[in-house]
């Protein structure tokens, strides 16, 4: 077995009580204090996440935009400099390679942020489809990412910089922001359903910034692990690759139609399959479910109506915010109407649940 990879912040985990796990080959903190406490901190104050394992790929050159238009489902031509966009890369049959953020850094210059477990697969795919005058560069190793999320995120981060962070609107960013002496790209984006920032910097600068943010935040900011990141994104119905999205699940099925511009004037990979699904409805749909009897739905648990298996759970837990046992499930479309009674197979028993509207949590 090869050694687990570590982020540049790794050596600082222990002093905050981190419990680490193997996450796709990375030794990452699943929690520091407790998943519930960290979850609550992000919903009410602020949380700090080390997400340096995420992948960053730079695309540069006169043909960079044409390339993005071909490999990604959203319309990257709509981006202005300083703006970010959620997008998806698909196979010709509409199955998902990865979901990603596209940052427009400048004319003919973009930054793509992809899932850690998919970096190699994505980069290979991109190289295979690169054409014309453009250069691709995988800068994942030299780039670190910290996320500060929660209603107090701006207050905390503002203490570290003269740049007016309130000017950065949702899904926009600023480059070369100086945060306690460290130059970073600061983006108003996140994976928690709260306001907050994702901060990209040189790998060697991440430990110092991690400490500065905790120091500036004091009681208002808690170090958070992947466990809370997962429950937070789940409540906000943000997809996780490998669960809500996969080689066998299209973004249309996952309810991400907003990021699939099937009528984009230039053709993209997967367009025909995705257009067909968007216009005629995909056979499966991702829905929210809530348990009506005792039990917690978990990833891959089968979902039934009577004797018919209609799909499976993609993510489920006891929602720390709602204190209810809820899940997301990919099921046959004819059963997707809210209120529909279904059953989840939990350890051999069929347990009653119903289809509910999502997200489970939306910030007010």
């Amino acid at each position, binding site marked *: 077995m090869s050694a687990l990879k570590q982020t540049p912040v790794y050596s600082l985990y222990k002093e905050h009580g981190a419990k680490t796990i193997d996450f796709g080959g990375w030794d990452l903190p699943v*929690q520091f204090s407790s998943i*519930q406490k960290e979850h609550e901190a992000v919903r009410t104050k602020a949380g700090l996440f080390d997400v340096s394992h995420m992948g960053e790929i730079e695309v540069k050159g006169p043909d960079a935009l044409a390339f993005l238009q071909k490999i990604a489902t959203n319309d990257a031509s709509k981006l202005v400099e300083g703006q970010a966009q959620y997008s998806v890369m698909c196979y010709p049959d509409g199955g998902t390679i990865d979901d990603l953020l596209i940052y427009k850094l400048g004319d003919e210059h973009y930054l793509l942020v992809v899932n850690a477990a998919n970096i190699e697969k994505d980069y290979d795919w991109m190289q295979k489809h690169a054409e014309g005058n453009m250069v691709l560069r995988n800068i994942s190793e030299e780039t670190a990412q910290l996320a500060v999320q929660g209603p107090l995120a701006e207050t905390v981060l503002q203490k570290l910089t003269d740049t007016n962070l309130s000017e950065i609107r949702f899904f926009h960013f600023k480059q070369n922001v100086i945060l306690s002496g460290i130059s970073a790209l600061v983006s108003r984006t996140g994976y928690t359903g709260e306001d907050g920032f994702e901060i990209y910097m040189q790998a060697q600068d991440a430990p110092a910034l991690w400490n500065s943010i905790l120091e500036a935040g004091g009681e208002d900011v808690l170090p958070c692990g992947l466990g809370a990141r997962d429950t937070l994104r789940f409540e906000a119905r943000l997809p996780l690759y490998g669960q809500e999205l996969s080689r066998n699940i299209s973004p249309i099925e996952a309810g991400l139609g907003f990021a699939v511009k099937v009528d984009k004037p230039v053709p993209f990979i997967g367009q025909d399959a995705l257009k067909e699904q968007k216009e005629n409805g995909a056979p499966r749909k991702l829905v929210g479910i809530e348990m009506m009897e*005792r039990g917690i739905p978990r990833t891959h648990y089968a979902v039934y109506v009577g004797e018919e298996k209609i799909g499976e759970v993609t993510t489920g*837990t*006891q929602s*720390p915010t709602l204190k209810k*046992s809820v899940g997301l499930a990919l099921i046959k479309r004819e059963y997707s109407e809210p209120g529909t009674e279904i059953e989840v197979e939990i350890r051999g028993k069929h347990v009653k649940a119903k289809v509910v509207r999502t997200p489970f949590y939306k910030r007010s």
Partner: protein
Amino acid sequence: MSQVQAELKYSKEHEWVEVLDNERVRVGITQFAQEQLGDIVFIELPEQGATVKVNESMGTVESVKAVSDIYSPVSGEIVEVNGELEEAPEAINGDAYGAGWMVVIKLADAAELDELMTAEQYEAFSKEEE
């Protein structure tokens, strides 16, 4: 809370066993086990009168993140169940050796107790698992 309690016996599946008298034992999961699980949000225990077998699953405990089996450390009959855990499973996190107790089992074979670890042995065992 301390990791182990001297008067208890322990299983390799991280259950503790308190000998109540010649034929009954009280069972729960250890401090080490609850720390590994994290915030416990759900528990499923056997019903009173159920028969359980040593080292076989007799229930489930779930944290926010994970699902774990509860293995019976002895064979016998369930004579008491801590019903309060159904509504408040977090008691296991807060007081694993006290309010977090799970069941009382009437022993089928008292000799099985000899297979369990002492506090000292368990402490060494759980350190290795860490």
